[in-house]
Each structure stands twice: as structure tokens, then as C-alpha cells.
């Protein structure tokens, strides 16, 4: 349980977790491996690795475009699992894969859980799989020792928060706004209240994501939550730069974000 372990370790150090999102295969899988290592080197605590999907309806334009770039470079689910296997030879950083339900359904729920675990995946994040539909996959994932990270949104009722908290392991993914992923200028009001509603229901760690795009926001998010998830802002850089320059820029951005989360 590398993800749960990481939150415990950080708590003892009095730190908050920085979770960085990357779309696997954007621009290609070799670069993805380098980016994971660069993020870790610069202070990322957990990596959220997106398996690209053709119709990412919970994502904004930045991640949509990244998914398309990844698919255009020939990225497949098994290619990504292989890539994670290779990454595992070099690092023990916790990795959660994020993907929409259809690619997993097509792969086969049980096969996916088994192969993901074998590859060295630690957790599973499926934005279009609320618990009503997710029982089967979430149970199979747990059997394999994968952590399952479910979402709480500002619209979630207390009853839903309780049930989500029950099924979540690793952490609870708290969506900071009603909307899709993408950089925003500010955090929505009401986030603090949402987090305290979650905290009333569970002791599990809560990480805040969606819209967090610069260190100052990350700092404010880290004051409220146990972890901060940054995606689109990093992915945007990946769309704009290449090679060593990209690794360097992502690295220094991650370093600033981590500083803000300490």
C-alpha cells in the first residue's frame, strides 16, 4: 500500500503530498518515463498517470489535447503497463493510473487489475465510475492489492461522501470545483467547507485537485487538504516544449509546487 504509506510518512514529517498528473504516452512513452523520474527527483510524492481515452468527458481542453497526442503516438493500455514496469526498475514512487471506464472494460476488469498490479501500479482512479457502477472493478482491484481512489465533488451529498470514503483507499480525490479539469486562476469558495464535510466522515487522507495551476494555489490547497493534485498546468508545458528543455522546466515547476506544499 505505497499510497497510504506515503501519506503516513508525509504526515509524520508534517508535509502535504504533491501528486502530479501526466498523460501516459504524451508525447510518447519514453518521455513519460523520463517525466516521471524528473517529477520524483524534484519532489513529487505520488504520480497520477493517465491512460489516454478518445472521449475524456471529465477533462478540459488541455488534457483532451494531451490524450489525443498520446493516442496519435500509438499509445496502448498494454504499452503503458510495460512502461510502468520499466519505470519500476528505477523508482518506488507510488503510481496511480487514471483512466475512463471503457478502456478497462475492454481490456477485461480482472485482467486489468492483475496486469496493473504486476506492472507495479499502486492505485486506480476512474472518473466516470461512481461507486454504484464500480463495485465489481473496485472489489477486483482490492483483491489484487490495488488502492482505489474515488471522487467527492462539491455537489456530493453527505450520504455519498460516506459511501465514497468507505470504498476509497489511498486517498479521497476531492474535486475543488464543479467543472472539468483545467487551470483556473483561483480556488472556488466553498472548498474549505467541502473538505471539512469529508473530514467529518472519514480519517482517510483527502487530496484536492482540478484547477490548481500555480504554487500559490497549491500552498492554499495544502493548508486545507492532505494532498494537492496538479495536472493541466504540467500537461500544458508538455504540449509546448520538447526534450531536455521540457524535463528541466517540468522539474523546476514541480520543485516550486513541492516547496509550496511543505
Amino acid at each position: 500500500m505505497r499510497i497510504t504509506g506515503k501519506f503516513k510518512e508525509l504526515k509524520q514529517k508534517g508535509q502535504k503530498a504533491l501528486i502530479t498528473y501526466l498523460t501516459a504516452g504524451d508525447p510518447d512513452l519514453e518521455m513519460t518515463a523520463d517525466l516521471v523520474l524528473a517529477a520524483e527527483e524534484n519532489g513529487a510524492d505520488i504520480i497520477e498517470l493517465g491512460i489516454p481515452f478518445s472521449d475524456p468527458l471529465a477533462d478540459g481542453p488541455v488534457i483532451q489535447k494531451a490524450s489525443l497526442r498520446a493516442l496519435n503516438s500509438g499509445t496502448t493500455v498494454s504499452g503503458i503497463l510495460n512502461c510502468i514496469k520499466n519505470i519500476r526498475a528505477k523508482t518506488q514512487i507510488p503510481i496511480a493510473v487514471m483512466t475512463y471506464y471503457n478502456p478497462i472494460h475492454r481490456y477485461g476488469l480482472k485482467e486489468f487489475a492483475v496486469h496493473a498490479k504486476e506492472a507495479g501500479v499502486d492505485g486506480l482512479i476512474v472518473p466516470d465510475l461512481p461507486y454504484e457502477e464500480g463495485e465489481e472493478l473496485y472489489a477486483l482491484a482490492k483483491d489484487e492489492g490495488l488502492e482505489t481512489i474515488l471522487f467527492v465533488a462539491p455537489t456530493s451529498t453527505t450520504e455519498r461522501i460516506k459511501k465514497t470514503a468507505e470504498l476509497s483507499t489511498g486517498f479521497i480525490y476531492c474535486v475543488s470545483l464543479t467543472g472539468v479539469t483545467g487551470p483556473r486562476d483561483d480556488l472556488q469558495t466553498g472548498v474549505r467547507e467541502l473538505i471539512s464535510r469529508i473530514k467529518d466522515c472519514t480519517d482517510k487522507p483527502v487530496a484536492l485537485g482540478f484547477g490548481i495551476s500555480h504554487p500559490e494555489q497549491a500552498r492554499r490547497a495544502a493548508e486545507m487538504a492532505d494532498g494537492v493534485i496538479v495536472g493541466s498546468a504540467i500537461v500544458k508545458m508538455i504540449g509546448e516544449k520538447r526534450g531536455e528543455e521540457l524535463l528541466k522546466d517540468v522539474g523546476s515547476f514541480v520543485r516550486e509546487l513541492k516547496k509550496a506544499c511543505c
Partner: protein
Amino acid sequence: MKILSEKKGHFGLFGGRYVPETLIPALDELEKAYNEAVKSPDFNIALSYYLKNYSGRPTPLYYAENLTRTLGGAKIFLKREDLNHTGAHKINNTLGQALLAKRMGKKRVIAETGAGQHGVATATVAAMFGLECEIYMGEKDMERQEINVFRMRMLGAKVTPVKTGSRTLKDATNEAIRDWVTNVKDTHYIIGSVVGPHPYPAIVRDFQAVIGREAKRQVLDIEGRLPDYVVACVGGGSNAMGIFYEFIPDKKVRLIGVEAAGKGIETGEHAASINAGSIGVLHGSKSYILQDEDGQIIPAHSISAGLDYPGVGPEHAYLKETGRATYVAVTDKEAVEGFKLLTKTEGIIPALESAHAVAFLERLSKVTTKEQTVILCLSGRGDKDVYTVSKHLNGRFDG
């Protein structure tokens, strides 16, 4: 109409709610509002009033004598949904959902559209009920259906071009869902077909079921017995579900859905999700979809923008699995022949969607007798498609 009872909105294996958590409470709210509405005399009276006096229901069941003679098989009746206000069955559903939106206190409605018929129907009811309205439409479809874009704008709707992916209905649907996730507090998403997360497939079906209820009464009046076949085109499948639903208990009535085979199923360029797709999850429900080995959605192809969708309503998937309905597929070329056939024999220009069903009659006529009857759901009129057909025929409308 009945109160939704399907457990979590599943039809056997199919259906469900595969959407971001943000939307689940909105779907619960919608389900509750709907279940209350169908029990409310006020709601039912208002809906009947608008269906009758605004849209022009009941639509006729027309005996297509010339078409019957030309094809030489069963007696053909056309359920004239093309005679509805705005020219298609889509208005049945948008009137119902707009009334629901008002009951829920929503100030804004959004919709996705392919051929533009659902967009026009949504813009129309929004104008009439005073709701703010935004329509998402693939850029490619906007080119194909320029006149409908203009109509929507005249009606006061904001038409937003969708430039991602295949730039058709599939991507417009993604964009509408993104809008809904963002504006869920004051916005109602008027889904245009029997697709999407529960309770939409059931709600849209119920609002469209008026087609089958009327058709059954009418055919009993005219013929004194039930039809042998009920035929309708299937993209998402709302006109087909609408006419099928009332006949589902009548086991002797054969239900046939006609999908778009595009350039031919063997070419891979088609929209035949049931005939050539596999089980998966798209736009919030589990059904038959077009996907590759890795679970990526394959863009659909059809000459008809309204059928150009890589999925189908979950209840159709269920009817297929249980064998209650049969699904066939008709190519672009055949559909254009169907378009010409109905235009020439009956002086009725059908929507290209419905022309797929008309084209299938040719096949059906070979296995039916003069004593049998067919009801075909003529889902919409073809004014919007005249340009597309003309282009397909290089401007030559002969033979």
C-alpha cells in the same frame, strides 16, 4: 407514462450511470423530479396541451398506397412524425424535458445535436418557455446542416461549434456533458436520444412513447388488428424506442431497427453499433458501441448526420440481447435510393435518417405478403437533407 422502477436504471446488462461524481446528485434530482411530474395532473395536462396544440399531435398514420404498390409486399403505413412542429419527432421529447426543467427551476437548457433536428427542437421550446439555450454541434455537422444552424440562431439559441475529435455528434455530446458538469446548478441538459446515464434513456423513451401509443390506436382503427412489422431507423434510437415501446408486449409484432451501414460495414466506415459494434461504455451508459481493441471510440460514419453516432441507446441493446427486436443495416447508397423512392411515389421527402428505414422496406417487401402490414416511423422531414442528397447524386436526380 410510468414511474421509473428499473434498479439504478439498468436494462439487463445495459444502461447505468457512468459519469463524473459531480453529476450524480443532478441525475438523482432529475429522476425524482420526473417521478413526481408523471404523477402530477398539472404536468400531464400541460404536456398533452403542448403536444396537441403546439406540435400538432396526433400525427397521422398514413396508408402509403403508391409505395405499397411499387414494392409489392405488405401494406405500408407511415407514422407521420415529419408533420410535427419543427419537422421531426424530436419535439415530443424537448417539450417534455423543457416542462421538467421549468418544474426543477432551471433557467438554462443545453443540448447536443447532430443533424440539427434536436437542436432546433430544443431552441424552439426554449424560445417558447423563455429558457436560456446553448446548443453544441460538431463543426462538420454545422457545415452539413447549415440551415438548421441558422434556424437555431434565429430562435435565440447560442450554437457552439465543437472542434475536437471527429467534429460530429459524439464530440458535441462530450462537450455538452462538460458544460453540464460545470453549470449543473442552474442548467438542465436536454439529451436528445434514448442514450446517456439513467434516467435519461427511460425519460426520453417515455416522452417518445406517444408515437407508438398513437400508432397502435390508429392501426387498430384502420385495420382492426395489430401490424406484423414496426420499422424505424436507429442512431441513438429515440424514434425507434418511441414507436417500439407500446408494441413490446405484443409478441407477434416484429420490431425492426434500421442502422446506418454507411459505406458498407466491411469498410469500417459505418454507424452500425448493434450490428458491428461491441459492448462498452460511452456517454454515461453501457451499450453497444464502436470501439477498437484498446477501448478507444471509433468515429462513426453515415451520410445522415442524425445517425452518425458510435453508440446506441441501452434499451435497444437489451431488446437485441433478448431477441425482442431485430436490427439490420442499410448503406448510404441504399438510403439515398429510399429517399428518392418515397419522394417520387408519395410526394413525401423523408429525412435521410428515416430514408434508411424506407430503404429497408425494399428488402422486407420480398418476404412479406399483401395481407401483412408494416408501420414505418417516418421520424422527420427531409428538407434539411436536400443539399446532401443533391451532392451525393452530383446534382442529378434521375432514374
